[in-house]
């Protein structure tokens, strides 16, 4: 059996009296493409927010490669190896494309450089800057964004903004990448291309991907396993093809 990258145990959170998410148990193996689907308001993004430390879970806990990360800050969780994208793209809009990626590279151990070193412009500062730029360019080339590297991020077309967000997240060198509705607002061609990109980064960066998506076609074409959330609880867990035949899932999606 392959290594378990993410494991959640009875993960849950309530806001006030409302139990937004409860008893979510995920087990995601290394290099898996795992889908988290469900109707609007089912609590998918809330799960992401718990996994990245934006919200503190009120019940349960979660482990990344066996290490418990519950209660850690967003920064710490990112250092441990979970990176994410956002449902509504959150780029550093007033920065150039390459600078967005450079920020993602900020915490990599090989680019360590203390503020004092930078303040005094010691040789190490120059060395770090040059190496960071080279790495950033490599990443941008992978995502076909190299030509646009000096553009303001907000001036990129929508599809490229999505790509840049993924590139920036990958720059933090994660073990697990969380993609929040990556195909939202894309046309069929772009969706098709995105599917290729996701598979490609899984292989190229040797990572595991957990993604939220509404587009069932996208999920069934990409993921092997899914969890269907409805009203904050897991309705179905297992192979993606069987999910579409599960009466409960169909009921949650179509109603009736």
């Amino acid at each position, binding site marked *: 059996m392959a290594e378990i990258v993410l494991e959640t145990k009875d993960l849950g959170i309530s806001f006030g009296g409302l139990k937004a998410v409860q008893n979510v148990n995920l087990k995601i193996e290394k290099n898996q493409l795992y889908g988290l689907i469900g109707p609007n308001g089912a609590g998918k993004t809330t799960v992401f927010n718990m996994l990245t430390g934006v919200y503190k879970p009120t019940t349960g806990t979660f482990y990344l490669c066996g290490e418990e990360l519950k209660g850690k800050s967003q920064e710490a969780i990112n250092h441990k190896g979970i990176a994410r994208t956002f449902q*509504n793209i959150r780029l550093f*809009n007033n920065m150039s494309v390459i*600078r967005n990626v450079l920020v993602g590279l900020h915490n990599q151990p090989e680019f360590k450089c203390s503020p004092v070193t930078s303040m005094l412009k010691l040789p190490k500062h120059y060395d770090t800057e040059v190496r960071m730029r080279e790495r950033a360019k490599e990443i941008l080339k992978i995502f076909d964004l190299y030509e646009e590297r000096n553009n303001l991020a907000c001036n990129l077309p929508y599809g490229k903004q999505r790509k840049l967000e993924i590139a920036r997240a990958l720059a933090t060198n994660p073990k697990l990448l969380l993609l929040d509705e990556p195909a939202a607002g894309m046309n069929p061609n772009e969706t098709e291309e995105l599917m290729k990109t996701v598979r490609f980064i899984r292989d190229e960066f040797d990572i595991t991907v957990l993604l939220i998506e509404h587009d069932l076609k996208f999920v069934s074409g990409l993921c092997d396993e899914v969890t269907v959330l409805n009203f904050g609880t897991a309705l179905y867990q297992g192979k993606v093809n069987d999910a579409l035949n599960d009466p409960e899932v169909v009921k949650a999606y179509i109603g009736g």
Partner: protein
Amino acid sequence: MNLIKNIKANTKPKYFTNYIIVAVMLAVTLTMKMTGNLARSNATLLAQISYSIILAVSLNLVVGFLGELSLGHAGFMCVGAYLGCFVANMLHEFISSPLLVLIISMVVGGVVAAVFGFIIGLPALRLKGDYLAIVTLAFGEIVRTIFKNLKAFGGALGLDSTRYKGNLFVVGFVVVLVTLFIIQNIVRSKHGRAITAIRDNEIAARAMGINVTYYKLFVFVVAAFFAGVAGVIYGHFATPVLYSFFSYNYSIEILVMVVLGGMGNITGSIIAATAITFINFQLQTRLSGDLAALKFLVYALILIVVVIFNNAPALSAVREKFSIRRFLKSKRHPSEVHDDEAAWDRVPTKIRMDEVLSVDVIVDDPYTPDKKDPTTKGGSN
């Protein structure tokens, strides 16, 4: 040599603009002094200009680069001035060289102010925007009230400080150079990128693993340090050091310099600080009594007009039309931007002073602009 190659790859002629401006100012005035052409009052003016520049540049780090409003910069200056001059008064008995005393007292004033910056930075971890602004304002008032009542620091009469015997403005401008060196180096490093990332989108910055707490504190401490140093310079020609000088109004005056020069634009801050201090100095003698309010009227209009012009969503077309860059016939493609550029506005405008004046640029390889203009814009807020 690898290092030289790296330095070359990371340095642009524009990086030296600010140093050159200040060095030229210093050289010209020093020559005038040597040849006996510099009036005593002008030497005072130059000292004032030097600490104004330090204040404006350090506040710009907080407001322009971190994107938080600090209304307590005069408070940090106050701490530095009182503590620095207090130490200087004691040291004069042991050390005969006034320059050495000045240097030690600047370090002491700066460090104590930095400690206060750390203390006031702590709430900054939890607060932002309006709340943080009001806390810094409250801090400034608290500091003033305390010094007003401390007998050891002269109480309501102020602290008697010793005037510096040499040319204070020369020391002042050297400190300006040091300030520029430190602050520009921060801004042009990976740490500067982290700071502007926080300003641009704090949530995303956290998700990218940027330690927001650390950097906010860092910025507050550095800015407070230099404000403290500026305070010590002030205390060495203005005697007594009086609490009432460091009021909220003075914090606003520094803010006016930053806004007028352009947020995130260090050259702008230098020019605006020089201009405003100069005008103040001239007006002081000419506008007496209630006419002095005219000065504040002008400040108010500067704040309102400059900010609305630079930020109003409806004016973006006008901004485009009167773009300074366009005026200078820049060859850069409008949508292109250099990666060290720090555009402040949330709605990016392509025309602010910083792009012409102080933008720190690292150009990659030559780039031919894309012919098709990207039209889709992703909403992201």
